[in-house]
């Protein structure tokens, strides 16, 4: 799930930027028909933006909705960001990106070259459990139809964030709207299986959830993007099933072992190690309970 995203986004990422005047942003304005002008955005005025080309003496007013794309000047230190991401310094990345994107906030409704950063933020906000903000980014990207694949991805994150926030009804409604509630056969897409499994797990239907996750792992094992989060979810659900059948703790531990082997030094590995400690606790509780019963 995250691999593609990171690859996509980090391909050009960053460390902004030239000093920006609060109201004056150097940018390329692209209009329908791909006619474009280099210049500076002077201001935003409701549905209008004021733009001044490099050659013109005065600014012109253009309807925001008529702009096809804004290409802002953003410099990027991709190596540094890649390193931070590899080190799972998500909060640092978020903080940097927030700072970088702040001056462009009022142009968030206009398609721009910042979408790729918003996508990264959407993902990182989700990873750090800030579901509302992840959803806010997802909503913005969903409206931007320049990259259908990214739109699809954002829909996935929106659903995941709703589930993460425990908003079952809204998640179910959204999934029905996207047609994800049906057709969960063996050849269903891994994202559909993953989201539905997450939702079922939230509703404590662990065996059903487990079957769907197992399908991701069994039938999409060559897809490293979805395998990684699916493996973690798999370990989590096996853990929940352990409450009824302690043998499932063994299963969860086996999955964790494999995560460590295959995805060392990843977010999933970090989560899996925490889960391992939780399982140890659950086992101890169970043993204590059994000894008390005896």
């Amino acid at each position: 799930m995250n691999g593609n995203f990171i690859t996509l986004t980090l391909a050009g990422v960053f460390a902004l930027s030239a000093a920006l005047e609060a109201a004056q942003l150097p940018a390329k304005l692209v209009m329908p028909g791909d006619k474009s002008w280099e210049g500076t955005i002077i201001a935003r005025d409701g549905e209008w933006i004021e733009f001044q080309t490099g050659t013109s003496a005065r600014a012109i007013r253009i309807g925001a909705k008529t702009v096809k794309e804004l290409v802002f000047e953003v410099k990027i230190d991709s190596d540094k960001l890649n390193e931070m991401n590899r080190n799972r310094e998500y909060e640092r990345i978020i903080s940097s990106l927030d700072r970088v994107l702040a001056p462009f906030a009022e142009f968030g409704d206009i398609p721009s070259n910042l979408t790729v950063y918003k996508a990264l933020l959407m993902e990182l906000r989700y990873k750090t459990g800030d579901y509302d903000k992840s959803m806010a980014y997802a909503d913005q990207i969903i409206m931007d139809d320049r990259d259908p694949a990214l739109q699809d991805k954002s829909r996935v994150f929106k659903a995941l964030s709703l589930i993460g926030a425990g908003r079952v009804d809204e998640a179910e409604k959204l999934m029905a709207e996207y047609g994800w509630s049906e057709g969960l056969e063996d050849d269903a897409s891994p994202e559909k299986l993953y989201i539905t499994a997450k939702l079922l797990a939230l509703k404590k239907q662990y065996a059903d959830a487990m079957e769907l996750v197992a399908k991701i792992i069994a039938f999409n094992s060559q897809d490293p993007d979805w395998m990684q989060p699916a493996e973690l979810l798999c370990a989590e659900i096996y853990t929940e099933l352990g409450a009824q059948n302690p043998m499932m703790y063994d299963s969860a531990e086996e999955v964790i072992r494999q995560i460590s082997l295959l995805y060392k030094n990843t977010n999933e590995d970090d989560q899996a190690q925490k889960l391992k400690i939780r399982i140890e606790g659950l086992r101890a509780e169970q043993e204590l309970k059994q000894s008390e019963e005896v």
Partner: protein
Amino acid sequence: MKFFNRIGGSALKASMLAALFCSGAALAQDYKSMGITGVVGSADRMLQRGDYRGAIPALEEVISRTGGLTDPTGKDTAQTCRFQLARAYYQVGDFASGMGVLEDYLENEPRKKERLALRMMAQGFFDTEDWDKIESLADRLLALPDLEKDDRYNANLLLGQARYRLEKWTEAVDPLSYAAEFAKEEQVRGLCQIMIVRALVEAENWSVLFGKLPAIYRTDSKYDINLNLTLMKAGKALYEQDDFLNALLLYRWVLPREELLDFANKRVTRLEKKLQADVKRGIADAEIEERRGQITNIQESMTTLRELPPYEDEVTFRIGQIYATVKRYWEGYVLFDKLYQQDRDGELGEAAMLQSVLILYDVGEIARAEERILLYLTEKPDGIYARTLLSMMMRDNLIKQNFARVVELRTHVEAVPAPQTEDDRSLQADLHFMLSFGYFQSREYKSAGEQFGVILDDYAKSDPAPDSEYYRGMTYLMVGDYKNALNDFKGYQQNNEYGEHVAASLFREAVCEFGLENIAEAEAAFSKFIETFPENGLVSEAYSMRGDIEASKEATNDDPYTLDRALADYRKGIDKATTQMQASYAAFQAAKVYKLEYKWQEIIDLMNYYMDRWEEQADVAEAVFWVGQAQIELGQVDEAVAAYLDSIERFGNDATQQGVDKIMLELIKVASGHLSDEDREGLAVKLKLKQTNIDARATVLLLRLRVAQAMLQGDDIAAALGAELLEQNVDLTITSPASLALMCDAAAKTGNIDEMERLSDYFMTTYEESELLWHAYRAKAEKSKAEGDDWGVLQVIDDAQGMFGADPDMGWAQILKAETEFKMEKYAEAEASYNMVMGVAEWRGPLFAEAMYGMGKCRLAKGDLEAAHSFFQRVYLLYKSYSDGDWAAKGYLAAADVAFKMGEEEKAVNTLKAMLEDVYTNTNPLAEQVRQQLKKLGVE
């Protein structure tokens, strides 16, 4: 893999061009006669215009003149010319000569172009595939200080491939990884990745491989056929070495054949199209040849792949097995399920079906497992695994004691085609054996016996056959067919001298003889058993039963000690008992014998011995009951009462100790039979006082004491307590049979349907063995009656009578049954039911009157007025005193009414007059109604 030659060559070429002389051209001529400056100038000019062949003689001439110089300028000129000469040879395709010159260059100083020279040398060795030399050159190149990025990349590329070709797998990985990371061309990167995978597989360095695979699988390299075949081969090898985890992690990267072929096909098309376009544009023959070779390589790997026998399903099955083995059950399940769904009739599909069911059992999804099994059995009773699956399901249900479920499978057991192989015969015999046990445990002994019979008849040599003979005997024994049981038990002993059930068979042989009233044979068999198996778990019972035989013998002058021998056996029975039940039987049988001999003190001693021996496990209530009886006989009523009170107090806070409730009832009986009113009152006070002295947390005991006190104070107070408890909605966990009985009665009396249901359900499920449980049945029957569910009433009564028969407390059931049948207008059945009441002496009393009255009603309903009149007449003639004359009054009225109906007014009036004269009825409330009636008729 010649791509390095080509790719490396291109890179080298670029570097070389950058290093070219920039001097002028010269024409080929007789250089020997020219001055050195002229020769150099000629060479320079020719190189400038790309005439490498022409430049060679000039360069050779310069080298021949300067090669021996030792001054720095001369050495430098010679080295520069050597390098350029080598380059010229390379350009004209004479690598051998070029490499010879490069060797000279690298052996001399200065070497300003050493890096390039090394790379050129290495490239030269590609043609001869001299990998050792390439490795050595690449190593030398990498050892140079301050290497440019491009040099480092090329050196690693060379080194990696050389080591790969030399099968130095581990050493190849690092340089190849470097090359893969910095390759500018996708094709080079891909090929490096594929070599890395192969090298890691060969080096069996799984952890590094698994770390690299996710990245590789984010690229199109994953579609490389050789890569997939490598992974699959390695996975298979590991699987066969039982290295399941590593096998799994390799296997699961393998893509399906069609996906690989599809991608390869597209790639070939793309490459061919590009090649055609480039050929038209004009490219070197060598490049054309090389690109054609690349296409051919792909096509060859496609052919290899196509020719492979189908592997996808086998790989899927193996992955499933590995998942299951490493306890990743659900992953295994979905894979097996898929295999089964796509090939339900194939061998692999059926095997997958079996595996999927095994996993469902492992994860506790029993309902799903059974659903799959039943569907399979229905679809394919002749399936390969029909017996195995049936066996699995039956065994699981037997273990869980779902015997009805086992029995339900009989149709499937019988639907499986007749076994043809020994294995199948053995499995089929097992199925019948399990089915037999299902029936046996469901108490369907006849069917159980039939199934054991199937094994004995059709699978006589199977493993379960010997046991089947014993257990069939048991089925006969359970239905009292001692004769056939005896045959089987004897047969078992004859056929299985050292069989597991030899001892039990002998014991049961004795039981059968006893049942057949062959007392001497029974006694002999019990004696033989006791002698042969003195430590067997059944020996206590053998002693007890032999004691029963002795006790039943008439003492004679010749043999006056039968009871003594019986008592000796019972004592042994207690000593040898391994269960409380065995000990209890012996102890209480012995007590009965002592009672026959009026040995009250012995009873007390025996019961104390029994209670000491079995402590909490003992049937304390029964024992205390016997002690109390004996004490009462010895005139020790106070001691008996004290013993009862002590037992109540000791065990009374445990609701499950039902014996305490029995003692409570006995205490009430003793109190009403042997205590004066004053003492009874004193006992009630004592019970009340105890309630104030007991810890308030002993809630069960406190409630029991309250109940005992109320019962001691009479039925009305007990009933009031029942109503009070009902009203208080008392927590059922603190109730015991005695309090539940009162509450059930109260609920029935008040017509509280919800409570009748709640209490009776709780009572029945919690104390199913209680002798007071009939109160629950009565409440349940009253509930059905209140709901107008006549069949429900009859069902409950049927159950109650099945459990309690015609116990003294069960008259209500027979009356209610008759009433219900009457209501359903089943008059004949109702009359028969009423009539049955009269057959139970213990029910003599008002129930008799009610039954007789009921019979009259039945006849009246059928229009048989004579008979009806007769029944009513008998009510007031025979049962005048019952229920304060109520029944007699009803009898008079009903008889008079029938007489009126018969038109015999005078008879009717006389009947009514007689009622008013009868001392049992003339003060009855109904008498006033009769007086009014007579007045209307004008009779004074």
